[in-house]
Protein backbone atom coordinates (compact mmCIF):
# COMPACT_ATOMS: atom_id res chain seq x y z
CA UNK A 1 0.00 0.00 0.00
CA UNK A 2 1.25 3.39 -1.04
CA UNK A 3 2.44 6.19 1.22
CA UNK A 4 1.62 9.51 -0.45
CA UNK A 5 3.63 12.53 0.73
CA UNK A 6 2.50 16.05 -0.15
CA UNK A 7 4.45 19.24 0.56
CA UNK A 8 2.41 21.90 -1.25
CA UNK A 9 -0.32 24.10 0.21
CA UNK A 10 -3.82 22.93 -0.74
CA UNK A 11 -4.76 26.07 -2.69
CA UNK A 12 -1.30 27.06 -3.91
CA UNK A 13 -0.81 24.18 -6.29
CA UNK A 14 -2.23 20.99 -7.71
CA UNK A 15 -0.16 18.48 -5.70
CA UNK A 16 -2.92 17.61 -3.21
CA UNK A 17 -5.60 17.28 -5.87
CA UNK A 18 -3.32 15.23 -8.10
CA UNK A 19 -2.53 12.94 -5.17
CA UNK A 20 -6.15 12.45 -4.18
CA UNK A 21 -6.84 11.37 -7.74
CA UNK A 22 -4.37 8.51 -7.22
CA UNK A 23 -5.35 7.61 -3.67
CA UNK A 24 -6.67 4.09 -3.08
CA UNK A 25 -8.41 2.96 0.07
CA UNK A 26 -5.81 1.52 2.40
CA UNK A 27 -3.11 3.97 1.24
CA UNK A 28 -1.69 6.46 3.72
CA UNK A 29 -1.43 10.22 3.24
CA UNK A 30 1.24 12.36 4.90
CA UNK A 31 1.06 16.16 4.86
CA UNK A 32 4.43 17.91 5.29
CA UNK A 33 5.72 21.47 4.90
CA UNK A 34 3.10 23.79 3.34
CA UNK A 35 0.66 20.89 2.88
CA UNK A 36 -0.11 20.91 6.60
CA UNK A 37 -2.51 23.81 5.97
CA UNK A 38 -4.88 21.15 4.62
CA UNK A 39 -4.80 19.40 7.99
CA UNK A 40 -6.88 22.11 9.66
CA UNK A 41 -9.97 21.26 7.62
CA UNK A 42 -9.66 17.79 6.12
CA UNK A 43 -13.29 17.54 5.01
CA UNK A 44 -13.09 20.78 3.03
CA UNK A 45 -10.05 19.50 1.18
CA UNK A 46 -11.71 16.11 0.63
CA UNK A 47 -9.00 14.21 2.45
CA UNK A 48 -9.71 10.49 2.84
CA UNK A 49 -11.11 9.11 6.08
CA UNK A 50 -8.41 7.54 8.23
CA UNK A 51 -4.71 7.05 7.50
CA UNK A 52 -4.10 10.79 7.22
CA UNK A 53 -0.98 12.08 8.95
CA UNK A 54 0.77 15.41 9.29
CA UNK A 55 4.25 16.31 10.49
CA UNK A 56 3.63 17.95 13.85
CA UNK A 57 6.72 20.16 13.63
CA UNK A 58 5.59 21.63 10.31
CA UNK A 59 2.08 22.28 11.64
CA UNK A 60 3.41 23.91 14.80
CA UNK A 61 5.78 26.09 12.78
CA UNK A 62 2.86 27.46 10.79
CA UNK A 63 0.37 27.86 13.60
CA UNK A 64 -1.86 25.14 12.17
CA UNK A 65 -4.10 23.20 14.57
CA UNK A 66 -4.60 19.67 13.30
CA UNK A 67 -8.17 18.48 12.98
CA UNK A 68 -9.04 15.38 14.97
CA UNK A 69 -9.16 13.25 11.84
CA UNK A 70 -5.47 13.97 11.19
CA UNK A 71 -2.75 12.25 13.23
CA UNK A 72 0.20 14.44 14.11
CA UNK A 73 3.50 12.54 13.95
CA UNK A 74 7.18 13.19 14.52
CA UNK A 75 10.03 12.27 12.19
CA UNK A 76 10.55 8.88 13.83
CA UNK A 77 6.94 7.89 13.19
CA UNK A 78 7.44 9.10 9.62
CA UNK A 79 10.31 6.64 9.21
CA UNK A 80 8.03 3.90 10.58
CA UNK A 81 5.35 4.85 8.04
CA UNK A 82 7.95 4.48 5.28
CA UNK A 83 8.93 1.06 6.56
CA UNK A 84 5.28 -0.03 6.61
CA UNK A 85 4.43 1.17 3.10
CA UNK A 86 5.62 0.68 -0.43
CA UNK A 87 5.91 2.51 -2.73
CA UNK A 88 6.47 6.00 -1.35
CA UNK A 89 5.23 8.73 -3.71
CA UNK A 90 6.11 12.39 -3.29
CA UNK A 91 3.76 14.99 -4.78
CA UNK A 92 5.51 18.33 -4.89
CA UNK A 93 5.69 21.79 -6.37
Amino acid sequence: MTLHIINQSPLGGSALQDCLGSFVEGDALLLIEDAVYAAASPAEHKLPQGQVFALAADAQARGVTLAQAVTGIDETAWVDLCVAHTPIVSWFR
Partner: protein
Amino acid sequence: MAKSILALCRHAPYGNALAREGLEAILACAAMDQVPSVLFSGDGVYQLLEQDPVAINEKSLRRNLQALPMFGIEHIHVCRKSADARGIAADTLQLAGAEIVLLADTGPFIRGFDQVLSF
Protein backbone atom coordinates in the same frame (compact mmCIF):
# COMPACT_ATOMS: atom_id res chain seq x y z
CA MET B 1 8.68 62.22 -8.32
CA ALA B 2 9.34 58.86 -6.76
CA LYS B 3 6.98 56.11 -7.80
CA SER B 4 4.47 54.57 -5.45
CA ILE B 5 5.27 50.95 -4.70
CA LEU B 6 3.09 48.00 -3.74
CA ALA B 7 4.55 44.78 -2.37
CA LEU B 8 2.25 41.87 -3.22
CA CYS B 9 2.92 38.86 -0.97
CA ARG B 10 1.34 35.68 -2.29
CA HIS B 11 3.33 32.85 -0.77
CA ALA B 12 3.12 30.85 2.44
CA PRO B 13 5.97 31.10 4.92
CA TYR B 14 8.75 28.46 5.31
CA GLY B 15 7.88 26.22 2.35
CA ASN B 16 10.02 28.39 0.14
CA ALA B 17 12.12 31.51 0.52
CA LEU B 18 9.78 33.98 -1.18
CA ALA B 19 7.89 34.95 1.97
CA ARG B 20 11.09 35.65 3.89
CA GLU B 21 12.86 37.41 1.05
CA GLY B 22 9.74 39.44 0.31
CA LEU B 23 9.60 40.76 3.85
CA GLU B 24 13.32 41.55 3.73
CA ALA B 25 12.84 43.53 0.52
CA ILE B 26 9.90 45.41 2.02
CA LEU B 27 11.96 46.39 5.07
CA ALA B 28 14.84 47.45 2.82
CA CYS B 29 12.55 49.66 0.72
CA ALA B 30 11.12 51.24 3.86
CA ALA B 31 14.61 51.80 5.28
CA MET B 32 15.46 53.62 2.03
CA ASP B 33 12.43 55.91 2.52
CA GLN B 34 10.62 54.22 -0.34
CA VAL B 35 7.92 52.97 2.02
CA PRO B 36 5.82 50.47 0.09
CA SER B 37 2.23 49.54 0.69
CA VAL B 38 1.83 45.85 1.47
CA LEU B 39 -0.89 43.45 0.33
CA PHE B 40 -1.16 39.84 1.46
CA SER B 41 -3.09 37.73 -0.98
CA GLY B 42 -3.50 34.04 -1.85
CA ASP B 43 -1.33 31.83 0.34
CA GLY B 44 0.40 35.00 1.52
CA VAL B 45 -2.33 35.46 4.13
CA TYR B 46 -0.84 32.46 5.96
CA GLN B 47 2.08 34.75 6.85
CA LEU B 48 -0.24 36.55 9.26
CA LEU B 49 -0.95 33.48 11.41
CA GLU B 50 0.88 32.94 14.69
CA GLN B 51 4.02 30.89 14.12
CA ASP B 52 6.39 28.75 16.15
CA PRO B 53 9.07 27.39 13.81
CA VAL B 54 11.62 26.38 16.45
CA ALA B 55 10.97 22.70 15.73
CA ILE B 56 11.97 23.18 12.09
CA ASN B 57 15.05 25.26 13.01
CA GLU B 58 13.74 28.43 11.42
CA LYS B 59 13.37 31.98 12.68
CA SER B 60 9.81 33.20 13.03
CA LEU B 61 8.76 35.33 10.08
CA ARG B 62 6.20 37.00 12.34
CA ARG B 63 9.19 38.90 13.76
CA ASN B 64 9.90 40.48 10.40
CA LEU B 65 6.23 41.25 10.02
CA GLN B 66 6.13 42.88 13.42
CA ALA B 67 8.95 45.16 12.37
CA LEU B 68 6.89 46.71 9.57
CA PRO B 69 5.15 49.35 11.74
CA MET B 70 8.53 50.50 13.07
CA PHE B 71 9.50 51.22 9.48
CA GLY B 72 6.42 53.31 8.83
CA ILE B 73 4.22 50.58 7.39
CA GLU B 74 1.14 50.95 9.57
CA HIS B 75 -1.51 49.48 7.30
CA ILE B 76 -1.42 45.80 6.37
CA HIS B 77 -3.75 45.11 3.47
CA VAL B 78 -5.25 41.65 3.24
CA CYS B 79 -7.33 40.14 0.46
CA ARG B 80 -10.56 39.15 2.18
CA LYS B 81 -11.42 36.49 -0.39
CA SER B 82 -8.06 34.81 0.16
CA ALA B 83 -8.53 34.77 3.93
CA ASP B 84 -12.08 33.43 3.59
CA ALA B 85 -11.02 30.70 1.18
CA ARG B 86 -8.44 29.53 3.73
CA GLY B 87 -10.83 29.52 6.65
CA ILE B 88 -9.04 32.39 8.37
CA ALA B 89 -11.45 34.55 10.35
CA ALA B 90 -10.72 38.22 9.72
CA ASP B 91 -10.90 39.13 13.40
CA THR B 92 -8.12 36.68 14.27
CA LEU B 93 -5.68 38.66 12.15
CA GLN B 94 -3.73 41.05 14.31
CA LEU B 95 -0.38 42.77 14.18
CA ALA B 96 0.77 45.01 17.03
CA GLY B 97 1.13 48.61 15.93
CA ALA B 98 -0.52 48.05 12.58
CA GLU B 99 -4.04 48.22 11.27
CA ILE B 100 -5.26 45.23 9.27
CA VAL B 101 -7.20 46.51 6.29
CA LEU B 102 -9.35 43.88 4.62
CA LEU B 103 -9.93 44.48 0.93
CA ALA B 104 -13.04 43.05 -0.69
CA ASP B 105 -11.70 43.90 -4.12
CA THR B 106 -7.95 44.03 -4.65
CA GLY B 107 -8.05 45.00 -8.33
CA PRO B 108 -8.81 48.72 -7.99
CA PHE B 109 -6.36 48.92 -5.08
CA ILE B 110 -3.51 47.47 -7.17
CA ARG B 111 -4.30 49.89 -9.99
CA GLY B 112 -3.46 52.81 -7.72
CA PHE B 113 0.26 52.06 -7.70
CA ASP B 114 3.07 52.80 -10.13
CA GLN B 115 5.13 49.69 -9.42
CA VAL B 116 4.32 46.30 -7.99
CA LEU B 117 6.93 44.02 -6.44
CA SER B 118 5.68 40.41 -6.36
CA PHE B 119 6.81 37.96 -3.70
